[in-house]
């Protein structure tokens, strides 16, 4: 069961239209290392985690990632709000406009639609947690590149928050990996 909270995890108030920035940010919505991939990866891997701690962590980080999906969607929505078809075309979203108008859709910065093959769920907690650690670093690196692509403080501020969360999640996944390795090597398990 999940419940929705009618609030963003972190404020997003973008005042200036920027279609070009919306386009590159789509990678964090529907790209391989984006927030949707992250949320679905953790929320499906959790079923085969071996300990209460690792089940809790994947549930909770997966849930937080859903809040990040909403933040990215909000940023893209606000960056393209009231953009004319001509402005969308000039910013590289002419094809997107033809298919989706001003809607949100899960594709990457180049228009490639999201696919489940971006994520794995191995049933092997060591393999899965290593994938999660890598995923957090790839998202962290992506946020750093996105931050270099804009000088709008309204965009940079939430991007910096999201980048920082990747760092924290990486830290927690590392702790979970150590704990799971300890659990799997303990005598009572064998």
């Amino acid at each position, binding site marked *: 069961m999940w419940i929705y909270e*009618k*609030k963003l*995890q972190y*404020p997003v108030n973008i005042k200036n239209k920027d279609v070009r920035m919306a386009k590159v940010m789509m990678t964090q919505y529907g790209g391989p290392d984006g927030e949707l991939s992250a949320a679905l990866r953790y929320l499906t891997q959790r079923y085969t985690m071996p300990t209460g*701690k690792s089940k809790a*962590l994947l549930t*909770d980080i997966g849930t937080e990632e859903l809040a990040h999906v909403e933040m990215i969607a909000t940023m893209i*929505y606000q960056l393209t709000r009231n953009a004319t078809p001509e402005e969308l075309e000039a910013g590289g979203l002419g094809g997107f406009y033809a298919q989706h108008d001003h809607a949100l859709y899960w594709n990457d910065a180049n228009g490639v639609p999201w696919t489940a093959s971006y994520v794995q769920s191995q049933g092997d907690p060591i393999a899965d947690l290593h994938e999660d650690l890598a995923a957090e670093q790839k998202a962290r690196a992506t946020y750093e590149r996105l931050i270099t692509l804009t000088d709008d403080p309204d965009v940079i501020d939430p991007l910096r928050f999201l980048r920082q969360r990747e760092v924290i999640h990486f830290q927690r996944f590392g*702790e979970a990996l150590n*704990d799971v390795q300890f659990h799997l090597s303990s005598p009572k398990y064998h």
Partner: protein
Amino acid sequence: MPMDERQQLMRQIQQLSFATVDLNLYLDTHPMCQQALFEYNRFTQELLRLRRMYEMKYGPITNFGYAPSQYPWQWVSEPWPWE
């Protein structure tokens, strides 16, 4: 643009809510940490208090039985978070 009372209260809720999320993740890998648990419980109480205050004045933040609504059904009120 200065924040109005509603926005200020929402900002406080977002800050407290963030603290509880971050402590929650920490506790997932450190369930024996008394200090983190104490902080988590302290922030949770304060968050509940501010949520109740906000929801009485401006309508529910959560639905599905987590917060009551005045008449008419307040959940449909705008703006939504992305607006």
